[in-house]
């Protein structure tokens, strides 16, 4: 029943899937460029500016370099798992994107198109289920390399991602409780109307999740960084301690796949964050869940992309601001602060709903 529902429009899903992957794969080089530029600017440097105008072709040069590098597989590595690691690291976050609505439903005249690849009711739960598989790519890659540093990175990554998934999910459960649905498209639809401040209508602030669940937002934000192994929680990669962590033994294109996977995971988490807390694809001019014609739909997609890019910029900004946590600090923050605060938030939400 689930499959027949999800893939009733198989051709449409395939087309949308190719579209999303196309956009994501084209954003990633831009992100790598932005990452380097922002890093440089924050550190008082200029950053890449030699390849192409303003260094814009730098990611292409990087990719070509990685393409021509020697592919080294360590002698005692488990070859199959070693090759599966980078594949999973990219595939899992990319698959999770299938549940994100990137636009409203469009009435084309001959039928409705829902602008998400896999339109299931418990989309949020499915997304969490798929993203939690993301640890496999890292864990397998680190273990199969047969290197102690890679293994340490992989162990850290597993522990960290599992711990913070709990906190993230507690934050999201509060959202599900307050919106009454786990369907991401409906969560977006609930955020379109203007925000009511104490019974007073205002015309500026939209009804975004961040205004309803600010504590959940802070918890989710922390967990988001930890899930993606980004600074200040990039212990799995911790360069000074572990070399490069779980991908220490990878070279060439397989390393590029890990890199790609990291950025795709960032995009997925940013997209989820935007969908839940920042109104998804909605915005001025894109305020209807069922539109006729492609104009408002494209506007909605542009809004969505712009919001996602803003969250990604915040990722980078934070990365080049904060130092790395110590491992025990990381665990303490996760289990002793975020999880209890998340539970309390859930409790308060429940009380407020039942009132």
């Amino acid at each position, binding site marked *: 029943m689930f499959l027949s529902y999800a893939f009733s429009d198989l051709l449409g899903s395939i087309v949308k899937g190719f579209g999303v992957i196309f956009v994501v794969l084209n954003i990633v080089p831009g992100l790598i460029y932005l990452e380097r530029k*922002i890093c440089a600017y924050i550190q*008082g440097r*200029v950053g890449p500016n030699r390849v192409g105008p303003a260094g814009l072709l730098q990611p292409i040069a990087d990719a070509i370099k990685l393409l021509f590098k020697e592919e080294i597989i360590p002698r005692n590595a488990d070859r199959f798992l070693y090759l599966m690691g980078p594949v999973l690291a990219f595939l899992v976050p990319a698959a999770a994107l299938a549940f994100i609505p990137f636009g409203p439903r469009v009435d084309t005249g001959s039928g409705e198109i829902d602008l998400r690849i896999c339109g299931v009711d418990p989309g949020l739960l499915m997304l969490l289920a798929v993203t939690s598989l993301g640890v496999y790519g890292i864990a397998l890659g680190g273990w199969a390399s047969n290197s102690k540093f890679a293994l340490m990175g992989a162990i850290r990554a597993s522990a960290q991602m599992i711990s913070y998934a709990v906190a993230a999910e507690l934050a999201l459960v509060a959202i599900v409780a307050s919106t009454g649905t786990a369907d991401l498209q409906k969560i977006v639809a609930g955020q379109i109307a203007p925000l009511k401040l104490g019974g007073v209508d205002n015309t500026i602030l939209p009804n975004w999740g961040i205004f309803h669940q600010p504590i959940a937002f802070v918890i989710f934000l922390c967990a988001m960084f930890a899930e993606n192994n980004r600074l200040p929680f990039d212990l799995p990669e911790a360069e000074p301690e572990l070399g490069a962590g779980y991908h220490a033994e990878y070279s060439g294109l397989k390393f590029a796949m890990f890199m790609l996977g990291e950025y795709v995971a960032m995009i997925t988490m940013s997209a989820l964050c935007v969908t839940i807390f920042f109104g998804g694809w909605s915005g001025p001019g894109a305020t209807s869940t069922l539109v006729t014609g492609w104009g408002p739909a494209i506007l909605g997609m542009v809004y969505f992309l712009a919001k996602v890019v803003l969250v990604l910029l915040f990722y980078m*900004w*934070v990365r080049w*601001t*904060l130092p790395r946590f110590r491992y025990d*600090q990381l665990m*303490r923050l996760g289990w002793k602060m975020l999880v209890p605060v998340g539970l309390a938030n859930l409790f308060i939400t429940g009380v407020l709903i039942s009132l």
Partner: protein
Amino acid sequence: MSQPHDAHKDEDDEVAPGKSLADRMYLPAIAQGLGKTLKHFFQPKATVEYPEKTIYDKDEQSRAIGHANPRYRGEHILVKDDQGREKCVACLLCMAACPALCIHIEPEPAPSEWTDRERRPKVFEIDMLRCIYCGYCEEACPCDAIRLTPKMYTPTVSRTERVYDKKRLLENNPEWQRPQRPKK
């Protein structure tokens, strides 16, 4: 009898004195840090984009960095007098002072119409690869005929090009041919 060690006690749980709740929540400090990096994002950058620019360019950016210190000891010049002749009288003091033995001078009698001196260098060569840029030659010179200038990079493709002859030294870094070095 000593207290039994409490293995389960987490030392980091003890609140450090003077740490308020705001401190322990990290959030104000994080906001402060983000503000700091945002400020630096928009500040002028310290990078001098060599080779388009060098630290000797007189633009504002290079001055702000202050690397182009006039007292930096880089490549030498031979100073010209007001008639455009070299000031050097081939006394060989710089050659004697040089600890790296990189200066090679062959004196010759000055032309008879040069009434102010008896000798001048026929050959004046400095091997820039041997030179340690100590500045002793400059100190030894009684006529202010040799100076070290802040110029430091002149790329060459062969070692022989790094031996500067008299002509090249006279034409090197002409900006530093000023009558007097800036005195501190």
